[in-house]
């Protein structure tokens, strides 16, 4: 009997090919949209991680309490030793010491008199080491507008907006006035090697990027760093993984007294991205928004496929009427209808998921470039967005694909099952 029904499905394109195509499209769109939303949200968080928070960040306890002010007088000391321990304990992760600072930039005219002056917000990161991941993390090669990357000590990058305001360009020198770690006054001359634009007003307004060793020299921070950022070996931030790293770090601190300072306030602490200023809310927001979008899309797709299943079932009322007349039990017809829906839904979902996952992989590698649209954005948003590859993309398409087809056909079948047979016959015009 099943062979007979299967033959019917295969012969009737309206019952086989068409529903399989519809289910495949639905499953494919679900997989891709899920991946897309996860990608957009994940990329935004990833950008915050790269620029500001890391996936985890090591600072002193005192620094963590005033993190927003980047208080370098509370910076980490003996950073090389700490970095060695971190690299040994977490070999899969990338660790990047950084110094954030505020200072005054003074641009002189040809006579050495002040031509332009203004506050700048600085990042000191490892720009010159060959194996440094920082230029890539800041996407610097692509962000350069004029000039080139710093190639030696004393060269810095200026935000393009800042450079325009100061009428400065590659090759110009300026003096940076600031405060040392000990609270003293410092001023150092630098050369602008190039200008950069990240595409976000927050960064482009007054950013200056210099090598970590230059900042250490300028601010009296030898073997010190305001913060050490840690990056997990995953494409998008994973809060659970980050929390595991923190917990292992806490255990490390307990066993390695040498890492602790005599004053507990200056001992290192590790914070996950989720525990840094505002990011917890951002994570919840991203989860909520992506969850809601995905739920709505899966629901909409489910309704479409449910409807397809329902219409497919209704279209066959005459056939069911004949089968009832020939003596087939209504329960058997109902079960065969569900069996067909399961077959069609499964085949469609497998095909749709396969195509959807393939598209996700392709566009994950290529990425969608929206940089031109984000030129004046004031929040940290990635210019290139990629769909995310997560375990869920392998099964999310089956929710609308199989479940909705089953539900739609079940509902259509209930119509037959509940009605009195003779009334059904009249309705079917059998």
């Amino acid at each position: 009997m099943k062979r007979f029904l299967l033959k019917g499905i295969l012969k009737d394109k309206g019952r086989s090919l068409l529903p399989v195509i519809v289910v495949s499209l639905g499953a494919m769109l679900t997989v891709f949209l899920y991946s897309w939303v996860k990608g957009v949200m994940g990329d935004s968080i990833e950008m915050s991680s790269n620029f500001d928070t890391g996936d985890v960040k090591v600072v002193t306890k005192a620094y963590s309490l005033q993190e927003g002010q980047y208080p370098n007088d509370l910076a980490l000391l003996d950073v090389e030793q700490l970095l060695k321990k971190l690299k040994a304990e977490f070999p899969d992760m990338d660790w990047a010491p950084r110094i954030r600072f505020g200072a005054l930039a003074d641009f002189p005219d040809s006579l050495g008199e002040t031509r332009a002056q203004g506050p700048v917000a600085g990042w000191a990161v490892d720009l010159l080491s060959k194996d440094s991941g920082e230029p890539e993390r800041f996407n610097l090669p692509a962000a350069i507008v004029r000039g080139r990357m710093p190639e030696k000590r004393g060269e810095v990058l200026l935000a393009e907006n800042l450079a325009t305001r100061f009428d400065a360009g590659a090759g110009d020198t300026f003096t940076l006035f600031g405060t040392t770690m000990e609270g003293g006054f410092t001023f150092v001359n630098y050369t602008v090697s190039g200008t950069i634009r990240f595409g976000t007003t927050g960064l482009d307004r007054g950013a200056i990027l210099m090598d970590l060793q230059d900042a250490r020299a300028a601010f009296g921070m030898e073997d010190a760093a305001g913060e050490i950022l840690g990056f997990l070996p995953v494409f998008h931030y994973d809060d659970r993984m980050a929390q595991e790293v923190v917990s292992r770090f806490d255990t490390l601190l307990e066993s390695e007294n040498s890492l602790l300072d005599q004053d507990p306030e200056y001992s290192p602490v590790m914070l996950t991205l989720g525990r840094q200023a505002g990011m917890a809310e951002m994570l919840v927001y991203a989860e909520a928004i992506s969850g809601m979008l995905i739920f709505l899309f899966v629901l909409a797709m489910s309704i479409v496929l449910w409807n397809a299943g329902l219409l497919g079932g209704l279209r066959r009322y005459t056939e069911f009427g004949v089968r009832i007349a020939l003596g087939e039990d209504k329960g058997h017809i109902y079960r065969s209808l569900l069996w067909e829906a399961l077959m069609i839904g499964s085949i469609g979902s497998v095909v749709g998921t396969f195509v959807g996952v393939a598209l996700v992989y392709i566009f994950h590698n290529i990425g969608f470039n929206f940089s031109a649209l984000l030129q004046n954005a004031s929040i940290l948003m990635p210019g290139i967005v990629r769909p995310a590859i997560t375990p869920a993309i392998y099964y999310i398409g089956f929710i609308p694909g199989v479940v909705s087809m089953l539900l739609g056909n079940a509902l259509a079948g209930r119509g037959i099952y509940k009605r009195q047979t003779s009334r059904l016959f009249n309705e079917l015009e059998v």
Partner: protein
Amino acid sequence: MTDNEIVTLRDLYKRFSAGKGLLTALRDINLTFGKGEFSGIVGPSGSGKTTLLNIIGSLDTPTEGTATVLGKQTGDLSQKEAAALRNHGIGFIFQTYNLLPVYSIYENVEFALLLQKTPARERKERVMESLQWVGLADRAQSRPATLSGGECQRVAIARSIVKRPALILADEPSANLDSVNTHHILKTMKQLNRELGTTFLFSTHDEKVMQHLDRIIYLKDGSVEKDELC
């Protein structure tokens, strides 16, 4: 009920709810159909012909009275038991043929036997035999869409006869046929009636069908107006 009786209807009423009231579709029906009868229920639209056929075919149950079909009271049967009764004892022929369009003629006829779980070899023999009776053995692999109306109705007859039911119910079988085809299918059915002893019960208001019937029951407003042998 004697051994010869296929259908016995006693004090049968059928009422449907219509708005706030009740519509009596059949009233006080007392009829008996014997083995090998070739009878017809005749009457205008709304006289209750189809309702009566539905009750005899165990597709519906009487509101009052009893309908005994092949020794079983249809009102007492569960849905599964009624399906089994139809499966083994009753064949249906419809005015619109109702063949399954995606299957071949052979498969349409075979379907009735699949429901009975008949072994493959026996199935094949019986399907081909039925198609030979109706003169369509050479079209076994054709699709219904390639057949004329008369040929489709002959396939429907083959489908109903293939399981050798004791009773065949034919609801307006000639409604979509011209007089030549009507004559042919009636001739085929009459022949099957004679050779296999199958009871045929028609619902019709077609004069051409009535000419072939051995017994005609006239229904009017749900009651038997006349029951005469031809």
